[in-house]
């Protein structure tokens, strides 16, 4: 960077105003707890149209009547919903550490192991806010390039202002506000998120990523993403924060909706590394996320790839509704639980259209006291003539205090359907470890190598850069898993 840190901070001070973040920051005073006033306040802060405020309020009223689900294979202390602050505005410059020296050394070591550059480290720790703002400008540059092709990629709240008709048409069309406890809560209080629209026949020329923007806007725990791919279009979307977050137990209830129209393809990749809590299970994120895509048209395709290594508890089932004939749904997943982490994750493939196909490939890794559950539903409806599903579900255990569980649900209402299900559970063998160590490779490196090998089929589905990051991340997440 050409300018020194001081110059950068000065620069920032002026830019902060330029980007208009300050007003909200200054008036940010929503008290903890939730009622209709809070919902209305959030809506008002965002200058939302009436229909959206009413939608939020309907969601809120519905949520009051719901109870928190208990069927998932995880355990945690009850969440005090009245203790949560439902609107968290962008963090001010003064809140973060001022230099890298102030960042927890453990976090820095993690950064170094991840191979994240100094500049990047600053950005991820929220130190060099200039860099965060730089990222915004980077995103803006992209935005212009994308706009040339008619692609809209912006913050959700921005889309509400600039493209209200699109938002209104598709919001809640895949995950209705009545869907489930956490999605309904999100519908009432969502703070921001991403919006993406790909016009008919357009192939998005670059991978779209929430990475920069989320960092820049520092959006809260209730984000909402909506992606619409018009007929014949294609988009690859990356979502992730590969930096560990230093936080207390925090509820993170996001919603992602994807709509793929005729012949469109959406590839959605996630690398999730929220703060998992400490070795004894103190702190960490409750990652209770609803992700669903709809193949609304013929030959549409939606592909979810996720690498879940963070969070104290992960509860998510990225799903595909295969409505259009010949549409395709895919789910590739790596979920790793170490220490006291718990994950209950999988997918739902709902086959409605004819000759619809789905593939599920799940790799669960449990280490320490980690508990890892695969839960998947494959539903073949009566109309889904010629539907096919292939499910492969592998679990890898490291040590003898962890657990792997598999709950496959299969409902078939059409006899022409073809289903294949394969499952395996294995332990990292003493044989394998010894073989590696005899060649000079340390136990820790050997475990990482073996686990990466186990996950290879899923990593192959990730965009190149993400795959490299995911591999490094696994190594870091597995630290202390053996020996």
């Amino acid at each position, binding site marked *: 960077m050409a300018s020194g840190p001081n110059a950068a901070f000065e620069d920032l001070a002026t830019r902060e105003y330029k980007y208009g973040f300050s007003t909200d920051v200054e008036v940010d005073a929503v008290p903890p707890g939730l009622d209709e006033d809070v919902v209305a306040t959030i809506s008002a802060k965002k200058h939302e149209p009436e229909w959206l405020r009413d939608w939020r309020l309907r969601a809120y009223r519905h949520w009051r009547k719901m109870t928190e689900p208990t069927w998932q294979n995880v355990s945690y202390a009850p969440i005090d919903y009245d203790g949560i602050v439902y609107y968290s505005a962008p963090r001010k410059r003064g809140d973060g550490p001022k230099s890298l020296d102030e960042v927890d050394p453990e976090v820095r070591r993690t950064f170094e192991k991840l191979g994240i550059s100094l500049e990047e480290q600053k950005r991820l720790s929220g130190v060099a806010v200039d860099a965060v703002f730089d990222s915004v400008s980077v995103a803006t540059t992209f935005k212009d390039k994308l706009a040339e092709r008619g692609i809209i990629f912006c913050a959700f709240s921005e889309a509400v202002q600039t493209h209200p008709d699109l938002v209104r048409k598709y919001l809640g069309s895949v995950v209705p506000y009545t869907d489930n406890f956490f999605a309904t809560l999100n519908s009432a209080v969502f703070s921001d998120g991403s919006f993406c629209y790909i016009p008919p026949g357009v192939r998005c020329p670059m991978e779209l990523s929430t990475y920069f923007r989320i960092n820049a806007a520092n959006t809260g725990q209730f984000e909402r993403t909506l992606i619409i791919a018009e007929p014949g279009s294609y988009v690859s979307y990356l979502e992730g924060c590969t930096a560990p977050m230093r936080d207390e137990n925090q509820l993170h209830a996001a919603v992602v909706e994807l709509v793929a129209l005729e012949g469109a393809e959406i590839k959605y990749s996630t690398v999730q590394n929220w703060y998992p809590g400490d070795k004894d299970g103190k702190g960490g994120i409750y990652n209770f996320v609803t992700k669903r895509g709809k193949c609304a048209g013929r030959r549409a395709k939606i592909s979810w790839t996720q690498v879940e290594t963070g969070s104290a508890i992960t509860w998510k089932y990225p799903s595909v509704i295969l409505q259009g004939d010949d549409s395709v749904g895919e789910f590739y997943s790596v979920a790793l639980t170490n220490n006291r982490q718990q994950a209950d994750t999988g997918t739902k493939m709902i086959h409605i259209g004819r000759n619809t196909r789905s593939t599920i490939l799940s790799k669960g890794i449990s280490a320490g006291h980690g508990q890892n559950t695969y839960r998947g539903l494959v539903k073949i409806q009566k109309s889904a003539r010629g539907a096919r599903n292939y499910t492969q579900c592998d679990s890898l255990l490291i040590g003898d205090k962890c657990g792997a569980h598999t709950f496959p649900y299969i409902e078939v209402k059409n006899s022409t359907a073809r289903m294949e299900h394969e499952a395996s559970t294995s332990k990292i*063998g*003493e*044989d*394998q470890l*010894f*073989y*590696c*160590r*005899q*060649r*000079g*490779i*340390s*136990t820790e*490196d050997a475990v990482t*190598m*073996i686990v*990466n*090998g*186990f*996950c*290879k*089929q899923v990593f192959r589905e990730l965009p190149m850069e993400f795959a490299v990051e995911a591999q490094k991340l696994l190594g870091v997440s597995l630290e202390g898993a053996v020996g």
Partner: protein
Amino acid sequence: MGATDGRQPLLEIIGLRVSVEGAEILRGIDLTVYPGEVHAIMGPNGSGKSTLAHVLAGREAFTVTGGSVRYAGRDLLAMSPEERACEGVFLAFQYPVEIPGVANKYFLRTAINAVRKHRGLAEIDVMDFLRLAREKAKQLDLDQALLDRAINEGFSGGEKKRNEILQMTLLEPRLAVLDETDSGLDIDALRIVAGGVNALRGPERAIVLVTHYQRLLDYIVPDQVHVLSDGRIVRSGDRALALELEERGYGWLDAAAGVRASG
């Protein structure tokens, strides 16, 4: 035993006793190996040959209950398996394990770099490594496609053994222990493997061949042959001993049990 002329032994085993799950497998082994030497350890199944090989490599399933092992002047038993490997101890496995999804070449390069790091050397250049690995694979008549495949996964028995020799060649150990590397090899493969081992022979290196059959020794001529029976070395001699064994079988030793060769 061996030509001493003031040189230090590379490996010195004294009174080594080893148990596994309470059963004593090695009951007092003495063996001294000097740099440049090739020793063959022969013996019937269950005599403790493989146990000896694994104990030298540091397998934790075996409990050393007595004796000592010195390697290049250091207490070998106090070293972790990876430290031994980095210090130049190599074990060619009788049953090389499969590691799904981990490319053979990646594994090899990681191993080489681990050893290089230990020796204070920079990591090997990726292209240099590939060139070297391909060249050595070719010498061992090993299909180069196997470098790209997952370690040992779907390899034939002979391919696995040659892959072990490939690793040995690339890692250039000071002490190579080959655990029944000849088993399951046809005569052509045996010749290739022996060629690989012979190419490694040198004044600074020592090789310990664990084998059930004499036939390997037609190709790799040992300096000394030791016969292991019931956890003890019951005879030591030169190559003639191996030939005698082949002729008379291990049963002959039972008849001569109790007769401990002085070497």
